[in-house]
C-alpha cells in the first residue's frame, strides 16, 4: 500500500474553536480541534454525548462557522468564505448522511437522489435519472425507486440518504450517526454500503458514532472529550 501524500488530503482543519449558546449559557464546545481526512479512508469520531462530535461535523460540512480556526476542503480555505462559496462547496465536494435521514417525503426515492444533481447541473436530466437509478440499485433499492419517502422503512430511507450523499461524487462524506436510528441488522447493512461505495470511489468518510462495533470497523478512531481529541 502506497504511503499517503498531501494530495490525498481532502479535508483539513486546524485549531477549530466553537462556542454555542449565549450569555451565561454559553458553552465552549470545541477547544482547538485539528484533523486531516484522506481519500478512501474511514474516520470514526467517538465520544460521550455533548463532547462536540456533531458540532465538529457541521463545521467540517460548512453548515456552521467556527469562532476560530481554519477548514480546508480539497486544498481551498473555506472557513471564512462567503455563504455562496460555502454553499457551492457543499454541493460539489460534500455529501451528508444524517441520523434522521432527512428525506424530502413528498418526493420519490429517485427524485430525492436526483435533488443534489439537479442543483449541481453537471448532467442532463436523463443522465441524472440513470445515475440515481444506479445508486439506488447499489444500495439495494432498485425496485423501490418510485416510492415516496413515506412508503419506505427507516433502513430504506437511510439507504436512500446514502445514495443521495453519493450523488454528486463528493470527495467527502460526513455522516452523523448514520446507524443511530436503525436496528443491528440494518446498521451493519448501511455501514457496509457506505464504506464500500465510498472506498470504491476514493471518498473520505468522517462519521460520528456511539456504536463501538461500527467504530472498530473504521480505518481510524478519533476519541473526543470536552471538545478536544484525546489519545
Amino acid at each position, binding site marked *: 500500500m502506497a504511503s499517503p501524500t498531501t494530495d490525498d488530503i481532502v479535508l483539513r482543519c486546524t485549531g477549530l474553536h466553537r462556542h454555542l449558546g449565549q450569555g451565561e449559557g454559553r458553552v465552549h464546545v470545541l477547544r482547538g480541534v485539528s484533523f486531516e481526512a484522506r481519500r478512501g479512508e474511514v474516520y470514526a469520531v467517538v465520544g460521550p454525548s455533548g463532547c462536540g462530535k*456533531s*458540532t465538529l461535523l*457541521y463545521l467540517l*460540512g460548512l*453548515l*456552521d462557522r467556527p469562532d476560530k480556526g481554519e477548514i480546508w476542503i480539497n486544498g481551498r480555505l473555506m472557513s471564512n468564505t462567503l*455563504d*455562496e462559496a460555502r*454553499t*457551492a462547496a*457543499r*454541493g*460539489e465536494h*460534500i455529501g*451528508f448522511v*444524517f*441520523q*434522521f435521514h*432527512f428525506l*424530502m417525503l*413528498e*418526493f420519490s426515492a429517485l427524485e430525492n437522489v436526483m*435533488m*443534489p444533481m*439537479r*442543483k*449541481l447541473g453537471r448532467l442532463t436530466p436523463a443522465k441524472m435519472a440513470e445515475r440515481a437509478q444506479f445508486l439506488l440499485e447499489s444500495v439495494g433499492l432498485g425496485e423501490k425507486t418510485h416510492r415516496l419517502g413515506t412508503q419506505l422503512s427507516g433502513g430504506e430511507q437511510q439507504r436512500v440518504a446514502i445514495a*443521495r450523499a453519493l450523488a*454528486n461524487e463528493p470527495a467527502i462524506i460526513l455522516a*452523523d*450517526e448514520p446507524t443511530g436510528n436503525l436496528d443491528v441488522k440494518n446498521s451493519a447493512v448501511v455501514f457496509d454500503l457506505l464504506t464500500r461505495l465510498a472506498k470504491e470511489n476514493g471518498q473520505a468518510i468522517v462519521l460520528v458514532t456511539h456504536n463501538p462495533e461500527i467504530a472498530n470497523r473504521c480505518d481510524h478512531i478519533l476519541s473526543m472529550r470536552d471538545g478536544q481529541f484525546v489519545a
Partner: protein
Amino acid sequence: MSTTFRIALRFLTARRRAMLMSLACIVLGVGLFIVTQSTTTGFEEFFIRTVLGTNGAIRVEDRIQPTIRTMEVGNGSETAGYTIELKDGVRYIEGIEEPEQVIKALRQFANVAGISEVVYGSADIRSSFKSDEARVYGIHLADHLSVSDLARQIVRGDLAGFRDNPTGLLLGVRLADRLQVQVGDSVLLRAGTELRRYRVSGVYETGIGDIDKVRVFMHMGEARSLLRKATGASFIQVDLYDRERAPQDAARMQSVLEHSVTSWQQREKTWLDVFRALRISTGITVSVFTLIAGLAMYNTLALIVMEKTKDIAILRSMGYTRRDITRIFLWQAAIVLTIGAILGSGLGWGVTEAVSRMPIRIRGIFTSDHFVVSRSVWHYVSATGISIVMVMVASLVPARRAARLEPGDVIRGTAQ
C-alpha cells in the same frame, strides 16, 4: 421545469386546506374587483355617453369682457398721489352676438367634429289637458344632429316629420307625458306676447330628467320669431373627435374666441366626481378580499416554513442557495396567485355578464332598464395587479425567513 418550481409544486400540497383558503380569497378578490369596476365604470361611461349625446363635448356661450378698475397709488397727499388701471376680472355678456364669426373660428380647430348654433328661451306650453313651463331650443336640425344623439333619442314619431314641418316640435318624453300629448297633437307656446300653435312631430328621451321635462326643440327660424331674437345665438354646441381632449380645447377656444367655453368634464364635474369616488370606494372595499388573501398566504407560507425547516436545511446542505429557498416559497405564492387570478377572472367575467342581464329601472341622470357594465381588459389587469402586489409582498416575509434559516442550527436542533 426548474428544480425550485418542482419543489414548490410539491410543497404546495403540504398545507392543502390553508392554500385553498388563500386561493379562495384571491379568486373572490379578483372576481369581485372586476365586477364592481365593470358596473361602476359601466354606469359612469353610460352617463358620459348620455351627457355628450345631449349637451355635447363643449359649449361656447357668453362673451367675456375684461373689467378695469382704477387704483390710487401713494400716501394720498396732493403731491404723491396718482392712479393706475388694473384688470379687475371679467364680465360676462349674455349670448353670442356674432355666431357666424365664432363658428368660422371654431372650424379652424382640428379636433372639432360638429358645430350647432342654438337659440333658447323660456316659454309656457299648453295642451288641451294642462299648461307647463318649457325651455325652447331653436336649432338647425342637421347641425344639431352632428353634435348630439338626438336621432337615437327619438322614442315616438320621427325626425323626418320634424324636418318637413316648419312648425313642428320635438318634446321631451316627460313633458309630453305631463301634457298628455301624442305625435300629431297641437300645442300652444307663449313667449312674452307671442302666442303660436305648433304640432308635435316627435318625442325624445335623453334619460336626463331635468332635460326631458322642459326642453322643446323647434326650427331656428321659428325660435327666433317666437323668442324675438332675430340675431345672435344663446350658445354654440360643439362635438369633438377626441372628447377626452375637451378641457385643453376649451381653454384654447376661450382664449381665442373671448367667449366662455366649458368642456363636458367641467360642466359635469360633480357627477363625474361622484362616479370616481364610487369606483374608488368599491375598489378599496373589495380589495379587502385581496388583502385577506395576502394575509392568508403569509400565514400559510409561514406554517410551511415552520414545517419544512428540515427540508430547507437538507436542501441547503446539498448546495441550494438562500436565493433558491426564497424562490421555492415565492413560486408557491406565484402558483396559487396564477390559479387564483385565472379563476377570479373567470368568476368576474361570469358575474359581470349575469349582472348585465339583471333588470333595474333607473331614471334621473340617465335612463336604463338594466345594469350597465363596462367590459375592459384593464379591470382584469388592475384586479390581477393588486392581487400580485398584495400576495407577493405578503409572501416575501416568510420566504426570506426560510432563506435566512441556518442549516446547522436546524440540524443540530433536530439531532439533539
